[in-house]
């Protein structure tokens, strides 16, 4: 029952807020805050309650079923905490510019229920239902500001969400067919215990499809494209939620696959590790190059998801021995939620004061603003993995996991280790860049920042309290952080480590290497290459503008692009080119979802033209047949150009009638060349014959089709009766 309350209470509050909040959106805000506070209490109570299941069998085809365990309880607490603090902050954030606020708070509440539904789902189908609800209810967050950028980003978000959701549905369906269940517990080790190769192949296919769906939401390469676009354009509290927890719902799906279905399958683990490394490094590089505060943080989110994936990957490689990696994974998830809460709310504070996010415009804003300074610094130190802060604990565990995997699988994993350390260094570098820009550099002469506190006390508390948790967790790692890991052990089917000496020389070495790399990158790359005359410049080449120029076409090419490599292999010859083109163009129908731009417009135009010709030809096939028949077999007989009066029948009858009536104008029997039109009787018969002819004509014309079909039917039966039935 507690689970049902957790999931449905915010949704009910959301619906209730509609009539009350119509006049004044502040009432909607109160509703949302009350819901979040209640949720916080209920989810905290979960640690002391034993009843952990809830099911409504009749709901959806598979029945709605929720389950709680240690890990889910932990995450429920994280989620409701995030919601509570962001809402606390929202009031001041929206005070200046609040259009459509009621809509915003409504969808905030709906999403809270839905995301808790994802995490508490006991089977994949329930998870997917809530996942879809979450995708659609978070869409209005992205588009909240309704600027051009927001509309475009939201379009991408929606497209990825819909495509991802359908792909996941497909995968879950294959699982259901193959295993007869989608219950998460029953999936455990289903893959390694599959016997035939075909069965394994299908399970891999299912896994890949589900990975597409959930990985897209998590921002895993190559489906991360929506993330660096959508997070910066959303309002800051929503960005914090998108980055901090919505991505984690995607990670949750990957956890279900990796620690359930594919548990102990080293190949799957290796794939996760590869994806993790690419995502981690790419995100960090993008973050380093960005000169927009929130975009940097968004790219950083992508990079941190990569860190989490490497943990999943090494845990998969190590199987039952992967305790360190599993602990690192769950702790980095929790940590990242915390960091992004602090950092995005800090960024929101900057934005609500200046309405600017460009580093060159906001530089020096934080000077003399102590609360903001402290919070941002704690967040930066945490995410940078500096010893003494919580990020260090999780990164050390992840690093240890990679080292263990390297010991077992050899040098290839060492490459992953170096990418890991390099990404850690880059994290430090871009955080230093932001920190120095905001709090140490002086603003231009033109701009003057108002002195005094940046935020009201309530808003300041909303980012200071979570920020204080970072060093507390960091210093009591063995107790607090590993405690969280131990709670989660059941979900990960892994023995979590009990006590570790985090501050041993071995462990400090990793952090040290990252710190050195970070310092080197900051001073050599950021200060030398990315700055010119003391201003930050965007060194991301125009043609490499990942937002628009590469990924949109790439997505449109990649999806249907199976034929691309083929045609590249064989060269473009007469056979392959139309094939590849056709498939490519079919894919550009997707652009309808994105809206039009310079890249997609010609594509969709071309597609439409091809489809137009094709479908015209197809659709008119039957029409053409009918037309052809009408012109040939059923051509209406032309109305004979005979003057009925002149026809011998009517003439004879007419003249007989004339003779009987003794019309004086007629000289008996003498046939004239042309009957006089004024002849009374001849005229009457003329009309009669004309009517008869026309009626028969109309009758035959309209009945012809039906009659022909009937005739066909009767002939067929006749044939049947005569030949097949009688003599057959």
């Amino acid at each position, binding site marked *: 029952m507690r689970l049902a309350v957790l999931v449905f209470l915010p949704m009910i509050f959301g619906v209730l807020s509609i009539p009350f909040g119509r006049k004044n959106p502040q009432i909607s805000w109160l509703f949302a805050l009350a819901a979040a506070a209640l949720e916080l209490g209920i989810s905290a109570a979960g640690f002391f309650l034993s009843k952990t299941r809830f099911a409504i069998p009749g709901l959806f085809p598979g029945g709605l079923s929720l389950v709680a365990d240690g890990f889910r309880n932990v995450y429920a607490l994280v989620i409701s905490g995030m919601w509570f603090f962001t809402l606390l902050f929202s009031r001041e954030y929206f005070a200046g510019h609040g259009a459509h606020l009621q809509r915003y708070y409504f969808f905030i509440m709906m999403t809270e229920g839905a995301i808790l539904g994802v995490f508490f789902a006991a089977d994949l189908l329930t998870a997917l239902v809530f996942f879809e609800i979450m995708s659609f209810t978070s869409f209005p967050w992205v588009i909240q500001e309704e600027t051009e950028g927001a509309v475009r980003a939201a379009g991408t978000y929606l497209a990825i969400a819909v495509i991802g959701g359908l792909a996941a549905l497909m995968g879950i369906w294959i699982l259901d067919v193959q295993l007869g269940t989608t219950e998460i517990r029953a999936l455990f080790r289903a893959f390694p215990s599959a016997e035939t190769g075909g069965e394994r192949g299908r399970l891999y296919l299912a896994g890949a499809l589900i990975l597409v769906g959930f990985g897209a939401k998590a921002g895993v390469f190559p489906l991360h494209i929506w993330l660096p676009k959508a997070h910066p354009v959303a309002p800051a509290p929503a960005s914090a939620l998108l980055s901090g927890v919505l991505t984690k719902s995607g990670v949750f799906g990957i956890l279900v696959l990796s620690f359930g279905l594919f548990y102990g399958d080293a190949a799957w683990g290796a794939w996760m590790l590869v994806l993790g490394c690419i995502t981690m490094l790419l995100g960090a590089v993008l973050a380093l190059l960005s000169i927009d505060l929130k975009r940097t943080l968004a790219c950083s989110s992508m990079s941190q998801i990569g860190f989490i994936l490497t943990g999943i990957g090494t845990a998969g490689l190590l199987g039952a021995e992967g305790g360190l990696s599993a602990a690192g994974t769950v702790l980095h998830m929790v940590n990242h939620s915390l960091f992004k809460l602090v950092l995005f709310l800090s960024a929101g504070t900057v934005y609500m004061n200046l309405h600017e996010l460009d580093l060159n415009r906001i530089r020096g804003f934080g000077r003399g603003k102590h609360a903001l300074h402290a919070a941002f610094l704690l967040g930066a130190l945490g995410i940078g993995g500096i010893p003494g802060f919580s990020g260090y604990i999780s990164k050390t565990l992840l690093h240890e996991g990679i080292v263990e995997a390297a010991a077992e699988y050899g040098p290839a994993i060492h490459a992953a280790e170096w990418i890991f350390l390099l990404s850690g260094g880059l994290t430090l570098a871009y955080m230093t860049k932001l920190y120095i820009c905001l709090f140490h550099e002086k603003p231009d002469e033109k701009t003057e920042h108002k002195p005094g506190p940046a935020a009201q006390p309530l808003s300041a508390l909303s980012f200071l309290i979570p920020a204080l948790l970072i060093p507390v967790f960091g210093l009591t790692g063995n107790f607090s952080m590993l405690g969280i890991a131990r709670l989660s052990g059941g979900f990960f089917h892994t023995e979590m480590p009990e006590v570790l000496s985090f501050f041993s020389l071995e462990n400090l070495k990793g952090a040290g290497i990252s710190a050195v790399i970070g310092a080197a990158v900051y001073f050599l790359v950021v200060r030398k290459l990315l700055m010119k005359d003391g201003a930050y410049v965007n060194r991301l080449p125009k043609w490499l503008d990942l937002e628009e120029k590469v990924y949109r076409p790439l997505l449109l090419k990649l999806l249907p692009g199976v034929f691309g490599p083929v045609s590249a292999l064989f060269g473009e010859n007469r056979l392959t080119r139309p094939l590849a083109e056709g498939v490519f163009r079919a894919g550009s129908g997707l652009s309808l979802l994105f809206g039009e731009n310079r890249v997609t417009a010609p594509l969709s135009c071309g597609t439409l033209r091809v489809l137009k010709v094709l479908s015209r030809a197809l*659709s008119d096939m039957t029409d053409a047949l009918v037309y052809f028949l009408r012109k040939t077999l059923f051509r209406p007989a032309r109305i004979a150009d005979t003057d009925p009066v002149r026809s011998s029948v009517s003439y004879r009858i007419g003249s007989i009638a004339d003779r009987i009536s003794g019309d004086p104008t007629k000289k008996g029997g003498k046939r004239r060349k042309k009957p006089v039109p004024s002849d009374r009787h001849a005229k009457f018969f003329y009309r009669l014959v004309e009517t008869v002819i026309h009626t028969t004509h109309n009758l035959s014309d309209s009945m012809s089709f039906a009659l022909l079909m009937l005739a066909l039917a009767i002939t067929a039966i006749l044939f049947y009766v005569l030949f097949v039935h009688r003599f057959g």
Partner: protein
Amino acid sequence: MIPSVFLLPVLLFPVAFGALLAAFRFRKRAHVRLYTMIVTLLTSAFSWAMILFGSTEPAVFLRFTRDFSFTLMFDGCGRFFAGIVATLWPLTVLYAFEYLAEDERQGVFFSWFTMACGVTLGIAMSGNIFTLYIFYELLTLTTVPLVMYTGTREAVRAARTYFVFCLGGAAFALISLLYLSTGEASVENVETTRIFYVLGVLGFGVKAAVFPMHGWLPKASVAPTPVTALLHAVAVVKAGAFSVIRLTFYGYSPELIRGSWAQYVLITLALLTILYGAVRAVREMHWKKRLAYSTVANLSYILFGVLLMTKEGLQGALLHMAFHAEIKILAFFAAGAVLHVTGREYVQEMDGLGRKMKGVFACFTVSALALTGIPPLSGFISKWHLLTAAAKAGTPFSWAGAAVILTAAFLTAIYMISMVRRAYFPDSKAELSKNEGVKDAPLLMLVPMIILALGILFTGLFPGAVIGAARDIAEAAHATGGGF
């Protein structure tokens, strides 16, 4: 238990009173509406009484020869179809009141409309293929005047196309029906049986808009929206699908067809139709025509389920019949409401309308999501059952079908959800000034739409009863088989 003899008055009631409506000269339009509403509601009530308490025994009213008789029977399958019709008809009538509010000739319209209701019920209540054929032809005749109601050149042409297509199709169905009545459909001459089965399915398939006999459906979307919504998304097209079910599971026996070329040819056609309809819908920019093409695709989902010839397949098909009906009728209502209020019929003209016509577009969003198959709305449930049935059948064709259905789901997302996005969040280039002063649809139009939207959500959340009914029907059909 109500004896089956009462089936005849139930279906004659709307026919007789519909015809009387044309005879009466009502002085006020409000009287026409009141009369129509009472007749329709009573028809629905009688039908539901028969569905819930009626006997399943056949009742023979007229015997022409030993083999041909006019027989009514109300078994599970018929009750299912009649339930859909009896539920959706009053809602459409309610919607039509507002839609045709300004029309002078609405008496004529409602007269034919009510008669069509009786005839559709007749299809559901038919006790043998011959009776089914009679009502099938009558349905064509009673709906042609509705299609050409507006009297424009386009409407008359569309009606003619419709008439020719349906009549021709029925002729083929007649061939099949006559063959069935010879009693030759058995294992001895199995190949001949298959030929006649294919002919019959193609004949009834005209109304179910199987490619390449689908041409009439998009053309007929020029008719007034209540007609397109009810007749061309629910009654007429579903009557086609229903007849195919009767032919397959009750007329011929699935055992004779399953695994033969006949099944494969027909499944291929159905799959082709799904892809074709979805692709055409993506490129069609006329709103109602887009929905019509979507109907073309979705009807073949039903046919695909039937043609799998398994009880799971039939169950999925019945579910999709019910759920697609409520989803598509709502989508048409939304399109009609926009057309009625603003006079716009093209997708491009919808930019930003979602903000102005909140109720209409909220309902349309529900319909779009449900049609795409987003859980927890009802469209998801029927698609899930169809997919599972395909997987259980396990032939290459059924796997191909699963792939096609999933591909079509992507296309559905493109053509439906892109409209929703456009309506709420127009491209920045769009001229929003022309939306000034646009108001939401009148309440009388919104009420049936909201009922349907809630219905979609409700049947999606609590599908147990409908799933159970469909399963019982499928099992019974599977157990008896033939002899219809």
